[in-house]
C-alpha cells in the first residue's frame, strides 16, 4: 500500500501508522520519519512552503515506486504539507513498513533523501532577519550518493 498526500493540514502520525499497517500481521517493523520547522534561538517567526501541484505528486509517486523496487515493503506513506507553518510544526511524514527492520530504515531514509532533492517544494522563512527563501544544501545533494 502506497499513500501519498500533499496537504496544508497537519497529520496524525500514529493514525497514519495504524492505517498503513491495517492489520497486516506480516509487518514486523515501521520506521516513521517526521520533519519539523526548526527555529534556532527563536530566529524564525513562520515558514511558508510553496510547491508545484501535480509535479509534486508525480515526483513523490516516482520516489515511492523506486523504494518499493529496492526493498520488500509492506507499505509506504508520504505526507508533505504546504502553506504557512509555525516553529515546531511538522512538515513531512514518511512511514515505511516491512517484515524486517533494516528494509524499513533504508526505505524511509531513501525516500527522505530523494524527496529533499527532487520533490518541488520551496521554503520561505519569516524571521528576525526579514524574509528569505531557503537555499538548497550541498549536503542534501551529497546524501543521494549513498544510494548509487
Amino acid at each position: 500500500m502506497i499513500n501519498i498526500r500533499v496537504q496544508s493540514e497537519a497529520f496524525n502520525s500514529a493514525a497514519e501508522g495504524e492505517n498503513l499497517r491495517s492489520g497486516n500481521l506480516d509487518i514486523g517493523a515501521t520506521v516513521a520519519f517526521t520533519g519539523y520547522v526548526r527555529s534556532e534561538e527563536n530566529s524564525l517567526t513562520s515558514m511558508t512552503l510553496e510547491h508545484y501541484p501535480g509535479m509534486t505528486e508525480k515526483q513523490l509517486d516516482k520516489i515511492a515506486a523506486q523504494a518499493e523496487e529496492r526493498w520488500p515493503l509492506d507499505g509506504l506513506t508520504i505526507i508533505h504539507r504546504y502553506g504557512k507553518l509555525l516553529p515546531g510544526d511538522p512538515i513531512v511524514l514518511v512511514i515505511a513498513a516491512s517484515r524486517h527492520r533494516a528494509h524499513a530504515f533504508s526505505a524511509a531514509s531513501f525516500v527522505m533523501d530523494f524527496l529533499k532533492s527532487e520533490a518541488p517544494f520551496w521554503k520561505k522563512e519569516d524571521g528576525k532577519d526579514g524574509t528569505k527563501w531557503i537555499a538548497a544544501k550541498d549536503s542534501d545533494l551529497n546524501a543521494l550518493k549513498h544510494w548509487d
Partner: protein
Amino acid sequence: MTLVYFSWIRETIGKSEEEIILPLDVTTVSGLIAHLKSLGEEYQAALAKPELLKIAIDQEYAGPDNSIASASEIAIFPPVTGG
C-alpha cells in the same frame, strides 16, 4: 506553451505563469532560457545563474539540451528545499 515559475524566480519575474509563443529557432531548454533573458531585466535577474535553475518539461525534470518541441508546460524554479 505555458511557462510556470516558482519561489524567488516567480517573485523576480513578477508572475507565476504566462503563455508564450516562441521564435521558431528556440527548440531547447537552453535556447528558451536565452530567449527569456532577452525579454527584459526581470528575466535577466531571475535567470542569471544557470546553476540555480531547475527545469521541468510537462512536470518531468529536464536538462539544458532537452528539446521543448512537444512541451505544453515548462516550469522554471530554483533547487528545491522541501522535507
